[in-house]
């Protein structure tokens, strides 16, 4: 018990000082179940805030142009908020219909299932069997699987997609061009690169990361690994390992483990695309 509490305090301190890995966050979550009184503890955050503010030099005032920008931003922000409120007021009334309990729906589900069984029964017992022979089922020609390029083109035409250009992580980093197309509703997306360096697939891999606002920003979502074995344009389908709530950044790293990594050191950061 005492050891668990000590470990919990260590993790709370680590969380404030460095952030936690996914495993550590999970461990802390479990420990907090044992000590629920610490669930909403902010004492470490407050300590960090006090440290951040200690010996703070506040002699330099905020630049005037920045103040003007913030005031402009506030105009835009409040105008958007007002639009939202107006839009909510215009919602059709059925949007507020009371929710049905699952038991209400179960009744309908049973009724629907019964009708299906009844329909099948009537079909098999009453329909003229000769008709079946006269009207053989049509052969369905399988639709050819779309290529990744075609799927990307299709997604580009969708209303809900976002398209972002890759930018180098540092000004002196090699220029990598291309883009990300992502549709959050469909949870589907593609990354495209024009000149990502070729790598030795037995030793290295490229890995995509998706920073999601609804997840801990310290633990971006693994978007899949991919290789580049030829020069020129490549398109890769995004393989997000978790549901993405609200993407705020996509990033590609080069990892020395050919299978990819759980946590990237970000030393091999190649390109970023911010939403």
């Amino acid at each position: 018990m005492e050891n668990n509490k000590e470990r919990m305090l260590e993790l709370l301190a680590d969380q404030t000082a460095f952030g936690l890995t996914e495993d550590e966050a999970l461990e802390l979550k479990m420990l907090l179940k044992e000590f629920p009184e610490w669930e909403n503890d902010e004492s470490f955050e407050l300590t960090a805030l006090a440290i951040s503010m200690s010996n703070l030099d506040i002699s330099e005032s905020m630049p005037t142009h920045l103040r003007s920008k913030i005031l402009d931003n506030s105009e835009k922000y409040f105008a958007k908020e007002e639009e939202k409120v107006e839009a909510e007021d215009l919602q059709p009334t059925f949007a507020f219909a009371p929710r049905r309990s699952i038991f209400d729906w179960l009744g309908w589900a049973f009724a629907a299932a019964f009708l299906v069984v009844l329909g099948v029964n009537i079909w098999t017992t009453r329909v003229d069997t000769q008709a079946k022979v006269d009207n053989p089922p049509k052969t369905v020609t399988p639709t050819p699987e779309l290529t990744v390029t075609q799927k990307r083109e299709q997604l580009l035409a969708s209303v809900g997609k976002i398209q972002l250009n890759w930018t180098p992580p540092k000004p002196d980093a090699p220029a990598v061009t291309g883009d990300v197309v992502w549709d959050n509703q469909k949870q589907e997306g593609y990354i495209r690169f024009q000149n990502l360096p070729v790598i030795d697939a037995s030793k290295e891999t490229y890995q995509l990361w998706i920073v999601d606002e609804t997840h801990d920003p310290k633990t971006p979502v693994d978007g899949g690994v991919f290789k580049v074995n030829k020069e020129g344009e490549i398109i890769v389908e995004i393989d997000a390992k978790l549901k993405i709530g609200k993407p705020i950044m996509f990033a590609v790293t080069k990892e020395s483990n050919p299978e990819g990594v759980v946590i990237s050191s970000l030393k091999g950061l190649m390109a970023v695309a911010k939403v």
Partner: protein
Amino acid sequence: MAKTILNRIADGDKSAVQECLDKFGGLIWSLARRMCPNKDDAEDAVQEIFIDIWKNAGRFDEIQASETTFVAMIARRRLIDRLRKNQRQPGIDSFEDILMEPAENSNEMMQTSVEAKEAAKALKILRPEQRQILHLSIVQGFSHQEISDALQMPLGTVKTHARRGLLQVREFLGLESAEIAREVKA
């Protein structure tokens, strides 16, 4: 009872934005200047922080914290997130600047809070390596790996110093109990 600035912002009162800037602009700008690598970055960060403040103003509860604490917490979280997201690969030169201890007791220094003053005192009683690691992690947003590389110190030792240092400062500030009033007084 008069409404606070944050309550008024939450109610969509645009005139409160000016007051919010007057009251907290200097503090946020100073925090951003301390925690951002350059002025341009600090300007971007401050704009984001104010948007965060407007978005979160409705969550402010004056029983829980003062407005200054609430605003400074939002600012710090945003700044530290930016630092951690900013995938830098620091060279020795950039570390040299960062490893420099912050200046103390300058006439131009103004203390913004009672707890911040206490924290400054508490930092002095820490061992130099604890103080240095807390500065690098909490103020500069460096990861334990980056600190370990820069200081040539094992990863576990970095973590231990950070934990002990943080716990000591927390205790010094009287925040050691989760039930104690949570406030950094302005």
